[in-house]
């Protein structure tokens, strides 16, 4: 629940109704609650509206009552049965899953090497990798597209998936994050394993990696979310409908659905709800990951 860095004066909130021993509920605190609550209502209104509209039948859509009079799951049935939604979902799961696995493996290996080894060219390699963060995706998609076309990658099924995935298989941001974490590992530990005759890869895999599990969790969630929501490159590279990812499929379907807002809201809800469930489970790691990159930046 409380994942923020504890402030020294922090103590568990008093149970409701009891006056707090040290902090009276004074006017500024009350004002803070009011402002925050109003802000939350505004922030969450789009979600509520999306869900409630998705449960409205066609006759009810435009009469603007907040709650549906006769809630129906028909919009969801139509989206799931009459569109390729489940396939888009599976495509996104595959693309985001494979990309995340690849990023976790390679980024932690590069981060570990840059943090724990001393070798010529170490700093220049790190700076070169970081500098790729400045290159806008828009600049790269044109050469990528030309390359994918020349290699005729999209002709075969594995090739088509690979074409969607390849730009994200190793991420510079992840290298930066993992290097930060590996720097905090004590060298003696790795040295001791070396003395015991463990192979270098064994030391990395069996000793260093398990010690940075929280960082791996953060990186995994960020990478997965980023690829789950990726739009520009998939929109460009996907030519056959069966390879559409969730954002591309949803966008094109919504464009075709025209004025069938019930369907559009149901499709949007189906895209949003799984992500929010994952967020609810992992919010601690997500927020810690942001804190770490923001503070070390």
């Amino acid at each position, binding site marked *: 629940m409380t994942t923020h860095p504890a402030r020294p004066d922090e103590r568990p909130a008093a149970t409701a109704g009891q006056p707090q021993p040290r902090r009276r509920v004074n006017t500024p605190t009350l004002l803070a609650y009011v402002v925050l609550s109003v802000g939350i209502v505004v922030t969450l209104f789009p979600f509520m509206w999306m869900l409630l509209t998705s449960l409205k039948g066609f006759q009810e859509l435009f009469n603007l009552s907040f709650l549906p009079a006769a809630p129906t799951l028909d919009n969801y049935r139509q989206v799931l049965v009459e569109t390729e939604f489940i396939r888009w979902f599976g495509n996104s799961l595959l693309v985001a899953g494979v990309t995340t696995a690849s990023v976790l493996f390679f980024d932690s290996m590069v981060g570990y090497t840059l943090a724990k080894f001393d070798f010529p060219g170490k700093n220049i390699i790190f700076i070169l990798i970081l500098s790729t963060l400045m290159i806008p995706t828009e600049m790269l998609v044109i050469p990528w597209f030309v390359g994918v076309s020349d290699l005729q990658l999209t002709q075969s099924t594995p090739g088509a998936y690979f074409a969607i995935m390849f730009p994200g298989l190793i991420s510079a941001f992840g290298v930066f994050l993992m290097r930060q974490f590996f720097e905090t590992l004590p060298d003696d530990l790795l040295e001791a394993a070396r003395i015991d005759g463990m192979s270098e890869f064994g030391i990395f895999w069996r000793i260093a990696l398990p010690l940075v599990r929280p960082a791996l969790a953060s990186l995994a969630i960020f990478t997965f979310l980023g690829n789950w929501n990726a739009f520009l490159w998939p929109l460009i590279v996907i030519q056959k409908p069966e390879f559409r990812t969730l954002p591309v499929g949803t966008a094109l379907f919504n464009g075709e659905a025209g004025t069938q807002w019930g369907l559009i809201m149901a499709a949007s809800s189906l895209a949003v709800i799984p992500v929010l469930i994952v967020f609810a489970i992992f919010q601690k790691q997500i*927020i810690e990951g942001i804190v770490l990159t923001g503070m070390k930046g």
Partner: protein
Amino acid sequence: MTSTAPTSTTPPRPRRGGSMRRHQTRTAYTFLLVPLIFFLIVRFLPTLSALRLSVFDWNILKEQQPFVGIENYERLFADEKFGQALRNTALYAVIGVPAQIALGLVVALMLNRIQALRGLFRALYFAPYVTPIVAAAWVWQWLFSPQFGPINTFLIWLNIPPQNFLTSPTQSLATTAALVVWQNLGFQIVLFLAGLAAIPRSYYEAAEIDGANGTQTFWKITLPLLNPTIVFSVVTGTISYLQLFTQVVNLNFTDQGGPLGSTMTVALYIYQIAFGRYQMGYASAITVVLFLIILAITLIQLRFLTRKYDL
């Protein structure tokens, strides 16, 4: 390593220099081989390729691809639509970045005042940040729909005439920026909470002893000490606004670029030129300009924030 007798705390190491260092270097480059090849093929070579493309008249549909030198760049400076896209993109950043920083700071300060429900509030504010952009954009369309949207219903209820929002050339950009701010707010709040937590309590205690009031404390202590966080937010925020694409495409799906091109961004214009008209050379020239702008902003950041790459 000066001690010759091995102790339990310092295990004997191979001789310094020579073999040890060679061994380290060999291992390091073995580990780095695949990632380095990846960065070369997927990032560096395409960057050079984009630079090269930008001096050719390269159209995928045509056989001939003549070298044209800086002609693409000359055309770009005379291109009214590109000018509009660039102005719009700047406007997005000028509206969006200050708005999300100001709102994020207010909410973070308020969250710092309360104790009960703090984690819940923070999580709820953060939810839009993880929401898929495409879905959020379509919900936004419906919320701001001129005839049926709940926002206009609310305005009528307040006796304000209904607005056209996304279908109005003057309001569409602000409506789009509002979506981006709504999505980024949670991220800003988390950054500011971290920044606030890093300010030593003793500063505030000293201010209290000196009899400073809340306003003075904010201007004299909180804001100056949050400066690194604010600079970081401005720079990363600006760079993300410069690449605005997904929201703009999905908010006016049937009218790409909005009414009279009023929401057109540089990224969307690049997309249209490259993948709508297949003019890869001209589109590449635009990406080079975008890259130079981002490079300039990053260098300014390095100037202001001497980044330390160590903990």
